[in-house]
């Protein structure tokens, strides 16, 4: 098991003949992803790395019965690519493109929802369900099969965290980067919910950064709905207010969105926050051990209680 993508994923690469699209189409195929086709208007009938190219999403989906698409087209055309994918019946759209105008995202988001589809990104590295399927640009070499679910607003920082887990012998179920823009399709809560319901995932790592209040909202959700151990890391503790730190969404404005507030909110609901990516596996392991002890203590107490009740009888 895994979340969002698996062995049944049939993927179309939008913008497959571009520099990034062709390179990553090949990488995804090599990882074992079922890449059934690609789309570039005007290039229909050709092939990229043995993958058939179509002129439109409509044609591609009709010919391949694809259920997922990944977008590598330039920012000026990325939003149209999302509409096109959803209109063709794609249920999961992963938009890698960086630099998509936020106002366009505000308009496309309700369209995606209304059509029963899911959007991941934009400006995200995509996701990997380890040893099953990879959609996006994450390096397949750093993951290891296991039971940690990883969700992150970042790209390379996610790799750093995954690598730390892998080196510590803690493999992953699915690793997903949701993107650092202001308006994104899939948020922390969507992923937390999916990880909570996924049997292959036993614990969760959530990597946030300054800006917005997604981590605070996620903390509230974790308290109410997540039973699995969660460890976090928040980037941007030294970031100055009012300056955009690369990601469109990573900005402390009007005193809100600080790392301090986020760490406080997470600690309050029992989520330890690592001081460095390398601390993540240590904290996660501690938390898992602590939970197990607590569970076995509770179980012991239950048995003792039953025994005393029996004695009394």
């Amino acid at each position, binding site marked *: 098991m895994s979340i969002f993508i698996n062995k049944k994923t049939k993927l179309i690469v939008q913008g497959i003949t571009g520099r990034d699209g062709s390179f990553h189409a090949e990488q995804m195929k090599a990882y074992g992803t079922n890449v059934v086709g690609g789309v570039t208007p005007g290039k229909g009938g050709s092939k990229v790395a043995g993958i058939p190219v179509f002129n439109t999403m409509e044609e591609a989906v009709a010919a391949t019965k694809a259920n997922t698409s990944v977008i590598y087209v330039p920012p000026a055309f990325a939003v149209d690519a999302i509409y096109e994918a959803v209109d063709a019946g794609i249920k999961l759209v992963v938009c890698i493109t960086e630099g998509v105008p*936020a106002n366009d995202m*505000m308009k496309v988001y309700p369209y995606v929802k209304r059509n029963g589809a899911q959007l991941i990104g934009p400006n995200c590295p995509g996701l990997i369900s380890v040893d099953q399927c990879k959609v996006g640009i994450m390096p397949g070499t750093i993951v290891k099969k296991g039971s940690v679910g990883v969700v992150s607003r970042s790209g390379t920082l996610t*790799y750093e965290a995954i690598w730390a887990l892998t080196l510590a012998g803690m493999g992953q179920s699915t690793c997903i980067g949701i993107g650092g823009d202001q308006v994104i399709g899939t948020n922390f809560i969507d992923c937390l919910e999916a990880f909570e319901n996924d049997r292959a995932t036993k614990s969760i790592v959530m990597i946030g950064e300054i800006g917005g209040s997604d981590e605070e909202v996620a903390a509230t959700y974790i308290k109410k709905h997540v039973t699995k151990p969660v460890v976090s890391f928040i980037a941007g503790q030294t970031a100055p207010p009012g300056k955009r*730190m690369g990601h469109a969404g990573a900005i402390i404005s009007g005193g809100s969105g600080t790392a301090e507030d986020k760490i406080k909110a997470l600690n309050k609901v029992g989520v330890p926050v690592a001081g460095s990516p390398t601390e993540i596996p240590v904290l996660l392991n501690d938390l898992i051990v602590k939970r197990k002890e607590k569970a076995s203590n509770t179980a012991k107490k239950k048995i003792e209680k039953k025994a005393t009740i029996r004695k009394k009888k």
Partner: protein
Amino acid sequence: MKIHEYQAKQLFADAGIPVPPGEVATTPVEAYEIAEKINRPVMVKSQVHVGGRGKAGGVKYAENAEAAKVLATSILGMDIKGLTVKKVLVTTAEDIISEAYVGIILDRVTKNPVFMVSSAGGIDIEEVAAKTPEKIFKLAVDPELGLRSFQARNLAYKLYRDINQVRATADILMKLYDVFWKVDASLVEINPLITNTASEVVAIDAKINIDDNALFRQKNIAAMRDLDAEEPSEIAAREGDLSFVKLDGNIGCMVNGAGLAMATMDLVKRYGGDPANFLDIGGSSNPQKVITALKIITSDPNVRSILINIFGGITRCDDVATGIGAALDELNLQIPIVVRLTGTNEEEAAKILSSYKLPSEDTLDKVVKKAIDLAGLGK
């Protein structure tokens, strides 16, 4: 991207939102001439990209043209929160009866543009928001439907009871919403929106922030960028397609990816150092970018060591190594550098750099500690 008040007012005026007449001056003489043309008492307003200009003494009232000239002399060149005033807006002084606040922000939680209005406008709006949030009314607008007339009226009634003022305000709100979309704003704000002795509703201040991601299709807006109001190193970085923010420390950082760049800075601080900058070279492998990045970092005289942290994914470590090598050949750097290149093609990278004898580390924690050592701050 931020634009100045006078530029935002021009966009408002173009959209039909009432703003007082005025022009921008860069010298006291120009300020005098504008005030004379207006031929009424004026406000002399510093044009800098920072809030709290009034409280800092950068907004003043002048009875006549001569007074405007004197005020412009003192305000031009003034330092407001680290920024030097190079332009003033000279504009008609209104007789203010009441001050309200209206703004639209992109709200990431609802994924909608959200209106915020309050009858308690003016310079203390932040305090109002913090202490009496119930005085601020919010309305999330469905981006597919747009702002309906009744919604604009509802908001206007939160500010005024007089039907003429309500109608005028509703009209302003509709136009403001159009401006928000037309210029790809992430924020538009009128603070204060005033009523004057003639019962008119007028926008006497204007603030617009533009979504950087939309600048490719907002050529006119992009041309409004005021290079005088920005840090020179940040301008050079933008031209080199790098994401850069100058900080006050002495350890120069060059990282791929914004999240990892922030995490690297955080670790520098955690281990007792102080980062000189945020710098993300992005996902590209272009060696030229690495050269530009090192030039920008070393142009800061405070920098005492340079930390290069690359986690290769799309970015190939060998390309970065080629760039570092070229930069070392070209720039004759005297500042110590420590590198950590891990991920895609790291072995090739190590080979390329072997002749330069740069210190290198294999983990994030180690490379950060080494950079602090090299800066002479280590224990």
